[in-house]
């Protein structure tokens, strides 16, 4: 048996421990992007509200931005409720 190839395989295995979290291709990135979109929507709503107070933006864009922010917050709250509910369901599971 070639010693070098087994050493190389060992080192290759050592660089990827089995317990390390694998970077899921879609799952984590999608969630991260959704969170970024959410934060962006909130920020846009805040900016529009600020400029409407200062007299820059008109009431229509204020109402539109606030409606979109409300929508985003409601979506986030609903998803969070679902996740917490699922987590509690797991905690209640008899071991």
């Amino acid at each position: 048996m070639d010693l070098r190839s087994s050493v190389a395989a060992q080192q290759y295995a050592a660089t990827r421990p089995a317990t390390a979290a694998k970077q899921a291709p879609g799952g984590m990135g999608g969630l991260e992007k959704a969170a970024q979109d959410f934060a962006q929507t909130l920020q846009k709503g805040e900016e529009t509200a600020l400029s409407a107070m200062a007299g820059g933006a008109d009431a229509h864009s204020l109402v539109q931005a606030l409606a979109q922010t409300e929508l985003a917050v409601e979506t986030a709250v609903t998803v969070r409720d679902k996740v917490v509910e699922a987590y509690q369901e797991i905690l209640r599971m008899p071991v």
Partner: protein
Amino acid sequence: MNELANTLAVSASGMKAQAGRLRFLSENIANADTPGYRRKTATFDQDMQAGQATGQVTTGPVVLDQQPLARIYSPGHPLADENGYYDGSNVDLIVEIADAREAQRSYEANLKMFEQARQMSQSLLQLLRR
């Protein structure tokens, strides 16, 4: 969800355009007695972004009504010519009021669409709650 958000944006643009139209109408009514004033009319254009229509509406450049100005007989007026006439405005109050009512109805229609899109998105999220 994106479609409903787009609906909100389109309805808001419609309301904004009608508000701009109402602003010109109020200018016309305020200047109904101004000599030489031509009534302003708002034009509506499709909103274009990167060469593609977004579905939203914008108000285009102001167009002045080229109908002849009203000749008003008033010999004591400083602007009156040798025959005692001067050029008034070509604003017809009845037309302005009718136009304003049309703007109001259009605004209400856009408002209803806005409300409906919001209700639809909220009832969609209601599905997830029990």
